[in-house]
């Protein structure tokens, strides 16, 4: 019992703040991991990260307007995701560059908004909260919103599952079946926009990429087929949020005392350690000789 006490500080499971954080964190982790598996497969990590930075503009606007920041993220991300998809770029290098140019313009706008913010109010502390997340300050009334967003994004992925797999792994085959990949890739970007919005609130805009890419990258090294990739990614994502919250809770007794280390630091550190552990496993070989992913 004393060992358990050392591992888990008293009060961890009886705190309602932690309860809300755990529910929202696990929902976010599972949606991010599922979307992230496709993101890794489609080499769209930069799109995922760019959306989180672009969404922060919406978050800042929502904050100014006095509505929960999640709505700002969702609206701006859905618009940006649709815009990037409407450009219809297939070439990987070109997509990278165009994402960069669009992100540069969006960040320029953010700089302008922040300038207006700081000249009218002095809100730099809130900006840091926006960038680095504040899972422990989420109101429990938002749990319903998070459940709704999770259901929509998972449904989008589930409906287009086969087409997404085909267009990610073998676009020619999809073309041969006379199906346009556009609907599937739009569905993917919308799911991505929602997942990124959720994780931007949970662990912060600039670290949301960790929850998106980390578990998926680790899962692709462990799993033999697509289904188990999704399962592993979701489990690892949820585990990293759970452990991250626990360690952050414990860290109130670590130096510098009574301060607490940030949850997002622990989440990312755990994801990274999990990934490094998967490197110990020798390169996976499938029946076809090479790893699928």
């Amino acid at each position, binding site marked *: 019992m004393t060992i358990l006490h050392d591992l888990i500080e008293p009060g961890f499971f009886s705190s309602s703040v932690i309860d809300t954080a755990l529910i929202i964190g696990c929902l976010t982790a599972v949606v991010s991991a599922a979307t992230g598996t496709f993101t890794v497969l489609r*080499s769209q990590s930069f799109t995922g990260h760019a959306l989180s930075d672009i969404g922060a503009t919406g978050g800042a606007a929502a904050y100014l307007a006095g509505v929960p920041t999640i709505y700002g993220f969702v609206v701006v991300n859905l618009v940006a995701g649709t815009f990037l998809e409407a450009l219809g770029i297939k070439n990987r290098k070109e997509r990278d560059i165009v994402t960069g140019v669009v992100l540069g313009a969006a960040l320029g706008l953010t700089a302008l908004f922040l300038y207006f913010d700081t000249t009218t109010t002095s809100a730099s502390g809130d900006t840091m909260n926006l960038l680095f997340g504040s899972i422990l300050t989420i109101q429990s009334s938002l749990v319903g919103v998070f459940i709704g967003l999770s259901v929509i994004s998972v449904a989008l992925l589930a409906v287009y599952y086969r087409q997404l797999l085909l267009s990610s792994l073998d676009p020619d085959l999809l073309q041969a079946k006379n199906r346009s990949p556009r609907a599937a890739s739009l569905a993917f970007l919308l799911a991505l926009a929602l997942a990124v919005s959720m994780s931007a609130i949970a662990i912060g805009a600039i670290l949301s990429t960790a929850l998106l890419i980390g578990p998926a990258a680790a899962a692709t090294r462990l799993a033999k087929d697509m289904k188990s990739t999704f399962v592993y990614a979701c489990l690892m994502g949820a585990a990293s949020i759970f452990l991250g919250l626990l360690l952050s809770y414990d860290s109130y007794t670590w130096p510098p005392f009574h301060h607490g*280390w940030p949850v997002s630091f622990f989440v990312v550190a755990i994801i990274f350690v999990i990934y490094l552990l998967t490197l110990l496993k020798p390169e996976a070989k499938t029946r076809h000789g090479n790893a699928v992913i």
Partner: protein
Amino acid sequence: MINAWITASIVGLVSAVVGFFIAVRGQAFLAHALPNGAFAGAAMANLISINPLLGLGIFSVFGAGTIGFLEKKLKKDTATALGFVLMLAIGALLLSLTAEYSQQIFALLFGEILGVSTTELLPTAILAAVILGLIFLCYRPLLYSSVLEEVAFAKKISPGQYNMAFLLIVALVTTMAIPVVGTLLIFTLLVAPAATARLVAATPKTALLVSVVLSLTTVYLSIALAYESNWPIGFFIGILGFVSYSLGKIYQKLAK
């Protein structure tokens, strides 16, 4: 003000040249990741009170090394993402451990080119010379390993080796640029002018030239506009980059 113009010229020139390779290799994500991740280095320098330039240098090289290591195991963009978030997470931790951060960190994110001092000018110039020297030495192998992998193979150029060299070059650009212009400016300057130049120029040499001209025009114009309006420079650089790239796209469509 004279310091601002000199700094802008140096940063504009270097980012146009390095940006050319960013555009050819399709590595805008890297140009975003290293400067944004490396700000943790400045936070670390702040925490243990060493020279911020040293902190930035150590951290950008650490980031470049991590990404380079991960690139052997993963796709380029996945590797960049993982290395990037690791740098950011360490930054978040360091920031939470230091008390007085926000003002300085804001300066690092968005830059304060108008307030560059003469003592900051010398390290910027030296780093710029080193970067341009490295690019000059590795110009051909870098170009081959970026666009023509078969030629690179035939000429016995190892892509992995030059990949690492390029990561280090971007790390140096990061160290040079962040103290004087901030992460946002250097990212936009690394991506937009060179990407636009590639749309309108036919050969690598003209693309480089167009990239330099565009980059300097963008920086000078943005400084002037920021000075007039008192709005942040990053806003003008970002928007001008977007506009010039869109115009480049239209030109490319019409030329066909």
